[in-house]
């Protein structure tokens, strides 16, 4: 027990994870005056850093540095002990301790799991190929940036947010890019057909080759490189391949500890797992959606930050249920997509014109109520939509889509 000598008056909190959710819990605890005695356990050798730039500015600018959420001195001043490059390998819920790879044991009164998600890989494609990247971490982004500087052509498998962001960044660097999507359209799980179509047309107009409804099949490997990919039955040479085919929740540690997991770590609205001493937050959680109660897992910065805030409230014995309106964004070249609320297959969709042809919003109504808004190059409408959804104020579609009146006027 190398680090178990906590002061008698400190109830130790151990946080496992190094992403936005973990950083936000630290920030919240410090603001609440509860930083002393906290341990932050990170698998990566970096302090928590901003992940959104990794697919954009970080790839495009060779000098762009990682942006840490907080400097080392901030953690130290707050009394937070950070364990870098030392992943948690086991939880003992009876003894209330976490074992790290280095062999350290950390005792906890409350444990917060913020283990995130990992990028999905193509089945049968071996790991460790020199010219294949799944973008998730800073190390992945550093490797991709170096590869982009040397390889001629980029193939992206997956027409989701990350794949398209990387594709647009590579295009801006002067690379030629093919995007291969097996679904009949882009962003199938994320946005409406209208927005997806606009994204497709914009990228194609910029010279990106985008193919939807394609079958990505076999591959040929030579030495430690992927040589070819079979696309619609045709063997196609590969210089550099990025896989952007979704992510799976990282819940192995929780499962092994016997915590209830089902497409993520199951939590209630206070972020408590099936063990009240253990909380979970961010991409790795399966939580009850506040309006419907349906179980949901979200991968977003907003969800990570706001669940972290709910967890801090629980840890400080002032529980506040998680009720935040989800919002997301994606930046792909000149395209700025901002989504508020959750889309639904049974929604009726209305289009609100923006200030130019490249600017519009799609408003989704379910049972006559505004449920979500997708904005393309229309940040003001996005921010107004968030406020409308937060307050629950309903605006009839014909009024909300009158583009001569700012959406903000209805807030």
């Amino acid at each position, binding site marked *: 027990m190398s680090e178990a000598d906590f002061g008698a008056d400190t109830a130790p909190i151990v946080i496992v994870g190094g992403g936005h959710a973990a950083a936000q819990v630290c*920030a919240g605890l410090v*603001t609440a005056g509860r930083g002393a005695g906290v341990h932050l356990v990170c698998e990566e050798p970096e302090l928590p850093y*901003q*992940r*959104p*730039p990794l697919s*954009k*500015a970080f790839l495009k600018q060779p*000098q762009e540095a990682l*942006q*840490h*959420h*907080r*400097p080392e*001195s*901030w953690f130290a*001043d707050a009394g937070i002990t950070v364990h870098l490059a030392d992943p948690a390998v086991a939880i003992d819920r009876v003894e209330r301790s976490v074992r790290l790879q280095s062999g350290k044991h950390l005792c906890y009164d409350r444990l917060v799991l913020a283990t995130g998600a990992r990028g999905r890989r193509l089945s049968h494609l071996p790991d460790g190929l020199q010219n294949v990247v799944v973008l998730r971490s800073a190390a992945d982004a550093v490797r991709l940036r170096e590869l982009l500087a040397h390889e001629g052509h980029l193939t992206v498998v997956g027409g989701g947010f990350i794949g398209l962001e990387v594709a647009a960044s590579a295009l801006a660097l002067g690379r030629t890019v093919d995007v291969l999507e097996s679904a009949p359209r882009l962003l199938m799980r994320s946005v409406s057909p209208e927005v997806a179509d606009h994204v497709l047309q914009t990228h194609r107009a910029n010279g990106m080759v985008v193919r939807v409804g394609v079958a990505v099949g076999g591959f040929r490997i030579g030495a430690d490189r992927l040589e070819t990919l079979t696309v619609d039955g045709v063997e196609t040479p590969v210089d550099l391949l990025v896989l952007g085919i979704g992510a799976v929740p990282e819940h192995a540690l929780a499962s092994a500890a016997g915590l209830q997991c089902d497409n993520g770590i199951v939590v209630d609205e206070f972020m408590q797992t099936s063990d009240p001493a253990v909380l979970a937050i961010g991409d790795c959680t399966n939580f009850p959606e506040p309006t419907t109660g349906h179980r949901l897992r979200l991968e977003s*910065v*907003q969800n990570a*930050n706001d669940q972290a805030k709910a967890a801090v409230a629980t840890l400080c014995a002032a529980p506040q249920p998680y009720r935040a309106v989800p919002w997301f*964004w994606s*930046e792909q070249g000149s395209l*700025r997509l*901002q989504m508020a609320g959750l889309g639904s297959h049974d929604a009726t969709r209305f289009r609100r014109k923006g200030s130019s042809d490249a600017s519009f919003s799609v408003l989704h109504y379910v049972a006559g109520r505004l449920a979500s808004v997708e904005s393309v*190059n*229309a*940040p*003001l409408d996005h*921010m*107004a939509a968030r406020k409308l959804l937060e307050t629950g104020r309903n605006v009839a579609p014909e009024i909300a889509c009158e583009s001569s009146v700012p959406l*903000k006027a209805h807030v």
Partner: protein
Amino acid sequence: MPDVVFQLPDGREQRVSGQPGESVMQIATAAGITGIVAECGGSAMCATCHVYVDPQWLGRLSPPLANELEMLECTAAERLPNSRLSCQIKLSDVLDGIAVRIPDRQQ
């Protein structure tokens, strides 16, 4: 190395050195200045890195682009004529000593 002077909501001042090319938001977060939230990491998507630029420095900045102007309409604290998103202010030697005031809230 150019300096940024942060005027904190409680009236204190904090002087921080940065590298040319870094944004004022990056310098603030790297220095642990908590009044800059920067939820989106510098993409002008969240308006939580709002600052008031000392008027005598305002003229030396590149004017805000359309998306920054729209996001500035959605700041949590009052928008003033000298409001900017600190993620969109890139430091350079001509900005050495720039003073920015941090609003009392970002969310």
